[in-house]
């Protein structure tokens, strides 16, 4: 089981996940229409890229956009969750040992304590995101079962990973569960709303280009996001 999950299944997962995301990126750009979107992408590419990059930076740097400053509590939870979710798996020592064995190179590994901490941060952040969906009427009204499912898919690898890491119960079972849930998460990326891992950048870039070209950028006034 372990050999299958970390062998053929893993390669298939990577191929579908990254290949799928690549297809989505290409489809997104191909589906833009200067006339329907009312943005002259090509003739004003320089203004567009400038506006797009400003727009992305404003929203990936904590507290840079006005939005993040108006909601400091949410901003903390949001960034903690996303940093934990993305940084932990990439720089985890155990993952990098596998990477070394498979491809002959590895990334710098996080100290165990830091990795544990980040995993917990992600879990607690996920819990808060779940609770606010239930607690706030303005979030509850737009929340569907699908939103909960995606949250579960996203944190499941952390739950199973921590159980395996603290060796609670049957280690081999929890390890297999961890790998499987991680693969489910990766497979879900191109096909679900989790595609925002990539489409966030595309959408933000596009709106940034809109502002950079038509909505002020060419008048020499940068939008204060």
């Amino acid at each position, binding site marked *: 089981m372990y050999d299958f999950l970390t062998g053929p299944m893993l390669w298939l997962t990577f191929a579908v996940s990254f290949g799928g995301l690549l297809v989505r990126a290409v489809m997104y750009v*191909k589906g833009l229409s200067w*006339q329907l979107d009312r943005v002259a992408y090509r003739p004003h590419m320089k203004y567009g890229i400038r506006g797009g990059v400003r727009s992305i930076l404003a929203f990936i740097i904590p507290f840079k956009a006005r939005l993040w400053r108006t909601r400091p509590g949410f901003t903390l939870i949001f960034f903690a969750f996303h940093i934990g979710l993305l940084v932990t798996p990439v720089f985890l020592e155990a993952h990098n040992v596998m990477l070394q064995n498979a491809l002959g190179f590895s990334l710098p590994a996080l100290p165990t304590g830091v990795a544990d901490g980040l995993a917990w941060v992600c879990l607690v952040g996920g819990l808060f995101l779940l609770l606010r969906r239930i607690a706030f009427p303005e979030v509850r009204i737009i929340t569907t079962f699908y939103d909960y499912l995606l949250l579960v898919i996203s944190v499941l690898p952390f739950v199973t990973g921590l159980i395996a890491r603290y060796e609670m119960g049957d280690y081999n079972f929890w390890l297999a569960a961890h790998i499987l849930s991680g693969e489910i998460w990766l497979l879900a990326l191109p096909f679900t709303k989790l595609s925002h891992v990539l489409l966030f950048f595309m959408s933000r870039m596009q709106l940034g280009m809109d502002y950079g070209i038509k909505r002020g950028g060419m008048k020499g006034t940068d939008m204060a996001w």
Partner: protein
Amino acid sequence: MPEGKFCNKTPITTDEQLKATLGDKGGKQYYEEMNHLDVDSDKLWASIQKTMKSRTKTWLEICAHCGLCAESCFLYQVNGRVPEQVPSYKIQSTLGVMVKKKGKVDNEFMQMCMETAWSKCTCCNRCGMYCPHGIDMGVMFSYLRGLLYSQGFVPWELKIGSGMHRVYRAQMDVTTEDWVETCEWMAEENEEDWPGLEIPVDKEGADIMYTCNAREPKHYPEDIAEAAILFHVAGENWTVPSEGWEQTSLSMFAGDWECCKDNVLNVYAALERLKPKRAIGTECGHAHRATVIEGPYWAGRPDGQPPVPYIHYVEWLAEALREGKLKIDPAKRIKEPVTLQDSCNYVRNQGLKDVTREIISYIVEPGYFVEMAPNKEHNYCCGGGGGFNGIGKYREQRNVALRKKRDQILDTGCKLVIAPCHNCWDAIRDLEEEYEIGIRWSFLKPLVIGMLDVPKHLLPPEE
């Protein structure tokens, strides 16, 4: 009954249809007929498939349902923060469902969409600035309005409005003759006070071609006179076209895209005919958006620019003051607390936030200008944008919407509001009428004329 006499899928294209629909007071019969209007699902779905490209598709798909857009919407704020006013909910429950059901929706659903699109969103685009994913629900509501219009689900006034544009190429029944006569009349009326004042019609090769909002010749012709006076004092070589002078687009609010294109091409044709060095539009936000920001795309101009540089009135005024073409008498500057309404359509949609403040620096005594909070691109809609001001059916909702601007103005403590946008000006007038907070409001033109330092040779000879 599939299609009504007034409420149907066919745009108004003749004067008779227009008069008949206008005769249906308040749209009584129109809305009654709407209750029986059939939805052409196949056409609706075909239209969605053809026009809904990756931007809107992605926006609908990746909305994380985080609710951060809620607070960004002034309509959410003034309506007791009910969840039904969350922008994400408003668009997901209308356009989102329409797409999910592949256009197979019923009359009741379409009427709910109409109410949402025209009474719960003014297309102010503020939410787009606050969505982490960069989802601009104002853009999507404009798109939804187009779909609704094509199916006949559009408020009565806007059906008429776009009909006006189709028949008269103006938002009101102002004909070419009416327009030219108004220009002549205004020139005559004011030439005693301003010797040599002219409103040159159809002059080729002028430096400036001036265009306006049909409300001006129809209801406030003095606005045209004021523009003429300021061009005259500034020594500009200018003209107005006899045809293609109207730059507003109620069709843009109605979602009648075909008509939008026709209107803007009419203005561009005037530019090509008269070959001015540049064009200047009046103090109107949506007119600027229609002719300068969105218009080039409707007209199919790949560079997204009008045929000649086309600027908003505030840009010309700032330039004239900066270059000394117009001089302000320091003694006549505004010496009372005054605030400024940033129009969504030229601030959030074209970045004209600094030029308006530059004008303020010339006409207001230092220390008297009070900013609204929030301001510039974060400012709230006047409360009547996107056609909201003109729709009788939603007057009550519009009056609630005005509360945000009322509170913003009250917070500044100012009694004078500068509103260089027709629609904002109207909304502020209405809010004073509705809530009586004791304020005055003004366009820039009359304020500036009142404080000009006019060169002696332009003044009437002393008796």
